[in-house]
């Protein structure tokens, strides 16, 4: 029987499997929830009864030949990819598989410094050498932007032996680079183009949105289905173009992937893909409309700046993702992270993240106008109750890194622990970042400057949650001897 986007092979196989009432003498040991009644009460009988192991009728994630393979083929078709892999280790696993499939120890990869920590983690694992392209920073908003074509070309010419370039597209804030031209440029220089598309799953399904990685001709893309696509947390897709070997990429994935892939995660990918393939256009038209309504209302409050396509400048901001509700807060005299905390503590509203000058509220397939009204009203109240004049706010976010060693060398090097204030001028062996959004302030191998220490101190003072170092409070750091 021919498969169409109306099908959801894993979901259908699970339903069939459920009807057979097979007696389980395999894992998981909770045996359809009977062995763990408290968990069953929490999650529901149906949910735990589908938490099953790989077996012939349900296929094997590590080596798919039937229903998982079918689900991958349908996903590839829906995303316009040569092949799609179902991923169960978060988009982190998709990003790391992209990097590990493209570069080996000592090989160079070109990337913007504002990548997610998962990219830097992959460099620690494989020993590749990062070549950074300054993503530029918007003066007024203090946010990192996209990659300029001229900067990319300069980096490629200076490092002709580089194997790949990685692009964040869109950024967390919704900023897009000129992806099509970057892909062409990469291929002209015999480099692969990898796209961290964690925040752009909807580009494949909505209308009037920026170009998707596969449509732009990229070689690999990490699409975080659980973010804007509606699947369960930790599920993701890795997409590849025709120049990549499916078999090799699967080998790389299998180096670190679980052999007990969750059918809850996999079926959620399958069902979400079907939903978006069939109804994605309407879904994202609605999301874009709600985001635009929210922007208009927030900009009417005064002080806040909910930005959008007016920022487009043809290079570092080549396009903007209008489903993102990114808001600058500096003119009300509050840091984005302060607004983020007030929304949570005072108004029971949880948004995605706040940094020094901005916050991001995630609008998606599950939102309704009444929640948007609450968010806007709470923002109006925060300005009335807590707003100050906008002076004295630190907002410059991008600090040019000085790379002294590769991430792998620095991570595994001989090192010593120092109080953070004594680390100036030393080479860092660890990561330091605010989470969310998880973009490193320091990565292993970078020189610690007074500018970076000021930034860390200010971020702490404003209530950012800093992570990455062995010391959970980031009061001390490991530095190279």
């Amino acid at each position, binding site marked *: 029987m021919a498969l169409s986007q109306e099908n959801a092979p894993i979901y259908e196989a699970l339903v069939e499997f459920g009807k057979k009432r097979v007696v389980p003498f395999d894992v998981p040991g909770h045996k359809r929830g009977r062995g763990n009644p408290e968990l069953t009460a929490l999650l529901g009988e149906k949910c735990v009864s589908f938490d099953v192991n790989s077996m012939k009728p349900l296929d094997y994630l590590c080596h798919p030949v039937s229903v998982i393979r079918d689900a991958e083929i349908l996903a590839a078709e829906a995303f316009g990819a040569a092949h799609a892999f179902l991923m169960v280790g978060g988009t982190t696993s998709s990003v790391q598989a992209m990097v590990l499939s493209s570069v080996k120890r000592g090989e160079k990869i070109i990337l913007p410094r504002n990548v997610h920590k998962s990219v830097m983690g992959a460099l620690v694992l494989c020993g590749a050498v990062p070549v950074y392209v300054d993503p530029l920073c918007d003066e007024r908003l203090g946010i990192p932007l996209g990659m300029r074509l001229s900067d990319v070309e300069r980096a490629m010419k200076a490092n002709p032996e580089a194997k790949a370039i990685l692009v964040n597209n869109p950024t967390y804030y919704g900023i897009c680079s000129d992806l099509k031209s970057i892909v062409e440029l990469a291929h002209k220089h015999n480099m692969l183009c990898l796209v961290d598309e964690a925040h752009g799953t909807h580009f494949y399904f909505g209308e009037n949105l920026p170009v998707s990685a596969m449509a732009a001709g990229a070689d690999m893309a990490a699409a975080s289905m659980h973010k804007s696509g509606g699947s369960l947390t930790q599920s993701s897709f890795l997409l590849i173009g025709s120049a990549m070997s499916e078999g090799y990429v699967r080998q790389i994935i299998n180096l670190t992937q679980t052999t007990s892939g969750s059918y809850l995660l996999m079926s959620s990918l399958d069902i979400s893909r079907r939903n978006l393939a069939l109804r994605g256009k309407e879904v994202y038209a609605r999301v874009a409309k709600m985001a635009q309504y929210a922007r208009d*209302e927030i900009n009417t409050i005064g002080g806040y700046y909910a930005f959008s396509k007016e920022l487009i400048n043809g290079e570092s901001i080549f396009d903007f993702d209008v489903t993102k509700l990114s808001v600058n807060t500096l003119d009300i005299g509050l840091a984005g992270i302060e607004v983020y905390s007030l929304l949570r503590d005072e108004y*029971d509203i949880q948004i995605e993240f706040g940094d020094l000058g901005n916050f991001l509220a995630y609008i998606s397939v599950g939102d309704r*106008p*009444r929640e948007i*009204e609450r968010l806007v009203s709470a923002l109006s109240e925060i300005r*009335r109750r807590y707003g100050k004049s906008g002076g004295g706010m630190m907002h410059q976010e991008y600090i040019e890194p000085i790379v002294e060693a590769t991430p792998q060398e620095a991570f595994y090097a001989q090192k010593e622990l120092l109080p953070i204030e004594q680390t100036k001028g030393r080479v860092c062996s660890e990561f330091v970042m605010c989470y969310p959004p998880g973009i490193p302030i320091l990565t292993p191998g970078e020189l610690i400057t007074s500018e970076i220490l000021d930034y860390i101190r200010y971020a702490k003072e404003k209530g950012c949650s800093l992570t990455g170092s062995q010391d959970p409070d980031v009061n001390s750091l490991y530095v190279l001897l």
Partner: protein
Amino acid sequence: MEFWFSENHTPNVQISIRVDKQLYSGKSEFQRIDVFDSPEFGRFLTLDGYMMLTEKDEFIYHEMITHVPMAVHPNVKKVLVIGAGDGGVIRELVRYHDIEAIDMVEIDPLVVEVCKKYLPQTACRFDDPRLTIHYEDGLRFVRFKENEYDLIIVDSTDPFGPGEGLFTKEFYGNCFKALKDDGILINQHESPFYPEDAAACQKAHKNIVETFPIAKVYQAHIPTYPSGHWLFGFASKKYHPLKDLNEIRWNMRSLTCRYYTTTLHKGAFYIPAYVEALLKNVE
């Protein structure tokens, strides 16, 4: 033939009212709307299956939500009413000739239309020239208002559905901003009795206490609402509901009521010990 309307007051408690016939059933963008005739309670309106009002006991709710602030505030000229699509609050308000303007904000035009047709007992004064009806989200409407109203009455549905936004801190904060320096906010405050309602009641009180310098709660007995014991919130920037009650002034108006008296006004603020404790807990 047995024909009963039933509503779950908790997962384990149900109230049923015998129905003569169903007069209307429809679905708007926001909710399902039904109107029934019953032998005991007369005509009644339900939204999403929840009892909103019956002809027999609506006077208690509408008198208590309106006359309590009107007997305290000495000079109410401009009133904002949020919700109130059945018209009961408007009917009580227009009895005061010194009120100059009433803005009513109802999210669902169909509720007003249905009530005009089937519930003339409450929806009888929508033609008053002082009244302007705005069909929009109350939370949004109040966001654009500043220092404008003497009195705001929040006649909302329960906080589990379209009315949810009207129990939030952002809403009460925006009401504070919309009120004049001596303004009063009255809200329907849920019941303190069953745990789920009590939690909503407590949360609403917390949000109001954090927003207004004076925040008191008063009670009424409403037979068709869960447990029959219902609360209202009295939040104010200046006037105290008892110290600033002017009995003579209100009684001089010679308004006849079936539930409200200025004596009952005083008693209504003396609430049971367990309710006091429930509210104290978040003050």
